[in-house]
């Protein structure tokens, strides 16, 4: 089939999809006909072979009038780039919106071979705007359909100014309170969640439960930036404020939001003018919070915001940044560009201290992302779609583009959806605490099983982000291509940090067949299409039985090029064609301290078991680990959990880490010491524990990692990236303590 014909057919498909999205009666008998037509038209007869599993008629969820959309060509999320002045201006607005979701209906009459289905649900959804205004002509996200937030694309060293508006109307989602756990009852009125005794085995309680899901914030996952003030500060909570406007942020971006806050106290120690500006912002916030209780009260807590304002005062008395914010919140991050220290021309006399770079680490250029991170509401908000890609470009990107001129770049934000308005657990067949998996199938950029068309021998650059809450159904977090016509791929980066040449080069002779993609992980792969036309799928490689089709991420359609248009067929094949590893990403050879961190979840006591780290849940006001700034440490991250769903993906903010050793008791007798150079990660699934058949004791799985607590002091977190576990308390508050002091001898 010619490319021209494919494009033409794709256009026809788009027109048909737009028409049929609105037109058909959901209950008419022609639905099966529709899906067959859509498949046939979308790329000709070859495409109909993509979906042999779709045997049953598509169905609709909850009586909504819609038509499921699947198998359409993948569209990258809309982008907001930084400008030539090195500043990215964006407005990110969260609000309640009805959005169409397509999925595979594993709860229908054919659970083993689920048909496509769809429904319209009210979600907390991102709208992304270029610039500094809520201007519909500058909106890059898609209204009315499930899709991620905008892709922020900037260069390392740029400044990202994001005017953040929480326009969620609490009346849209009235059954979720900040200070109490959400409640689910059975039909007799008995409380099932959070539960009082016996069921679940250890009931969730504040603050480690699903709650407060109309309050939100942002985490810039993979960035090496300050965790304080207006930067990657996940302790901040932005409450709903329907009157907030981006103009409120403009002034503060110019004055205080983008100053450097390398330690928690830095915001208290600025010049007099900045201090005055800060106080103006703080005062405005305090006034707004108190007024919210009158003009926009929480449905079930009429004095909430006044109490939050009082807590801010308390925090300020201790020099801490205010926790609760109303109005526009001026997020400002500046992922630092590493600049090597100057080399002196001659040996100074007398000897001077060795010059140091401004930033010891620098931001690794690569594929990163952002998502909601308010404790207690992270999982429902990410299920609602509150995540997006963040691509920070640098020498890595420039070199790959030099080697592969004109290369097509695909951004794949993988998400999953569940229909409930809040995240409270249900009882049910699996027992209290079991989360439903009603809505199976991954969405990529909001699309169900999209198609990526490649020309024979074409090499494309795929940036893949696992933005799911818990991965695929029963996911083991391993992905690869299936099918006789499977492409080859060469991985160039993990978690937004490039591979060293020594880790990339072996793939040239022996390409990998799988890559790790736990929730939170990113991979960059160069995908090389086979030399002949055909199809293949990118799937979760789960060894356990799955409903047909639910493990498919995307389908690859390889076509024969029949025109003379050039396309990229190159990939780095020699060291000079490959990005050089920046010096700040060299191996951490020496460490000054070692620690053991134990992730624990005893599922033998039944579903809903408490998720623990070192025997404890997250607790407000308690710091679990403290490290001195600029120390290099080795942590052994153990997993004492056994069973399904408990290969906890360990994630730590601000600094990436190198995995040096892995032990999986199910498959290894001895730990696997990994060869250098070590790969950098920021999220790593801990191998499961294994119960010893003789003693009954759990032998923990583990990995060892080395990290450098560089550049930024402050409070941030490590946690399980199965986000429901994080909400329920599998999170540690850590503090990196500044290694400088104002105390001097005089």
């Amino acid at each position, binding site marked *: 089939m010619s490319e021209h014909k494919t494009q033409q057919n794709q256009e026809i498909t788009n027109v048909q999809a737009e028409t049929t999205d609105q037109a058909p009666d959901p209950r008419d008998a022609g639905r099966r006909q529709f899906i067959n037509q859509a498949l046939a038209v979308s790329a000709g007869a070859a495409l109909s072979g993509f979906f042999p599993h779709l045997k049953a008629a598509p169905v609709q969820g909850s009586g909504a009038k819609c038509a499921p959309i699947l198998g359409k060509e993948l569209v990258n999320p809309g982008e907001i780039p930084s400008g030539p002045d090195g500043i990215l201006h964006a407005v990110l607005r969260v609000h309640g919106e009805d959005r169409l979701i397509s999925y595979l209906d594993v709860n229908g009459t054919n659970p083993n071979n689920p048909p496509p289905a769809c429904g319209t649900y009210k979600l907390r959804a991102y709208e992304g705007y270029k610039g500094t205004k809520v201007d519909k002509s500058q909106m890059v996200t898609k209204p009315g359909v499930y899709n991620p937030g905008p892709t922020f694309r900037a260069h390392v060293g740029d400044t990202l100014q994001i005017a953040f508006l929480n326009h969620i109307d609490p009346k849209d989602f009235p059954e979720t309170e900040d200070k109490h756990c959400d409640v689910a009852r*059975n039909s007799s009125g008995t409380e099932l969640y959070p539960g009082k005794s016996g069921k679940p085995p250890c009931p969730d309680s504040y603050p480690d439960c699903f709650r407060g899901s109309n309050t939100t914030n942002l985490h810039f996952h993979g960035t090496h930036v300050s965790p304080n003030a207006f930067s990657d500060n996940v302790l901040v909570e932005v409450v709903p404020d329907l009157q907030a406007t981006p103009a409120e942020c403009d002034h503060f971006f110019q004055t205080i939001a983008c100053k450097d806050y390398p330690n928690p106290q830095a915001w208290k120690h600025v010049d007099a003018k900045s201090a005055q500006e800060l106080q103006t912002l703080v005062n405005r916030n305090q006034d707004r919070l108190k007024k919210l209780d009158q003009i926009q009260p929480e449905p079930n807590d009429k004095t909430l915001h006044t109490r939050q304002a009082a807590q801010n005062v308390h925090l300020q008395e201790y020099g801490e940044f205010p926790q609760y914010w109303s109005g526009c919140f001026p997020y400002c991050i500046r992922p630092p560009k590493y600049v090597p220290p100057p080399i002196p021309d001659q040996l100074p006399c007398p000897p001077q201290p060795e010059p140091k770079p401004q930033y010891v680490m620098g931001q690794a250029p690569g594929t990163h992302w952002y998502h909601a991170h308010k404790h207690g509401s992270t999982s429902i908000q990410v299920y609602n779609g509150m995540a997006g890609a963040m691509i920070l470009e640098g020498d890595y990107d420039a070199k790959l583009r030099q080697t592969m001129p004109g290369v097509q770049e695909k951004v794949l934000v993988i998400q999953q959806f569940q229909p409930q308005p809040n995240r409270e657990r249900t009882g*049910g067949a699996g027992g209290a605490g079991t989360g439903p998996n009603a809505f199976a199938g991954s969405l990529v950029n909001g699309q169900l099983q999209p198609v990526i068309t490649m020309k024979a021998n074409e090499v494309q650059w795929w940036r893949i982000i696992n933005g799911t809450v818990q991965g695929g159904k029963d996911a083991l977090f391993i992905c690869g291509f299936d099918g006789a016509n499977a492409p080859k791929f060469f991985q160039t980066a993990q978690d937004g940090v490039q591979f060293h040449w020594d880790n990339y080069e072996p793939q040239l002779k022996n390409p990998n067949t799988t890559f790790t993609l736990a929730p939170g992980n990113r991979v960059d792969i160069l995908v090389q299409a086979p030399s002949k036309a055909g199809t293949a799928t990118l799937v979760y490689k789960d060894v356990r039985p799955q409903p047909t089709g639910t493990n498919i991420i995307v389908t690859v359609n390889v076509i024969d090029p029949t025109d003379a248009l050039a396309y990229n067929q190159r990939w780095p094949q020699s060291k000079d064609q490959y990005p050089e590893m920046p010096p700040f990403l060299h191996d951490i050879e020496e460490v000054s301290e070692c620690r053991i961190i134990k992730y624990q979840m005893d599922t033998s006591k039944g579903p809903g078991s408490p998720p623990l780290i070192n025997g404890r849940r997250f607790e407000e006001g308690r710091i679990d680990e403290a490290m001195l700034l600029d120390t290099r440490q080795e942590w052994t991250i153990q997993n004492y959990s056994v069973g399904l769903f408990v290969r906890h993906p360990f994630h730590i903010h601000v600094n990436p880490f190198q995995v040096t050793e892995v032990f999986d008791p199910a498959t290894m007798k001895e730990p696997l010491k990994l060869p250098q150079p070590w790969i950098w990660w920021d999220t790593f699934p801990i191998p499961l524990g294994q119960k010893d058949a003789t003693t009954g004791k759990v032998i923990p799985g583990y990995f060892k990692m080395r990290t450098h607590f560089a550049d930024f002091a402050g409070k941030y977190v490590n946690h399980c990236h199965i986000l429901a576990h994080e909400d329920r308390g599998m999170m540690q508050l850590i503090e990196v303590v500044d290694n400088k002091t104002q105390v001097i001898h005089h």
Partner: protein
Amino acid sequence: MAEPNIVKVTIANAPAQTTIFEPNPQTINQFDSVFWSNETTDSHQPAPDGGADDQWVSKPIPPKGQSSQVVFEDTGTFPYHCAKHPDSATEKGVITVNPQS
């Protein structure tokens, strides 16, 4: 055994002689959950016939609002009504709960 599902019942303005609850009946399996999404301009409070007003939903669901989940652990037919408008002929519905297959 299938894992529990969560389904939506929409509350929408309806022509006379019909119900504001859509779909009606809502048919689910044992251990599934139901929540209500109010698309009318008035508040509504689904409650089981013969039960307390706040047995399923603690407070009336405001316009545009959505309720929390109600888990149906028993099989059978569960007729319900709007506790805020108990005399309205169009504000009645049924949840039918089938055994797990």
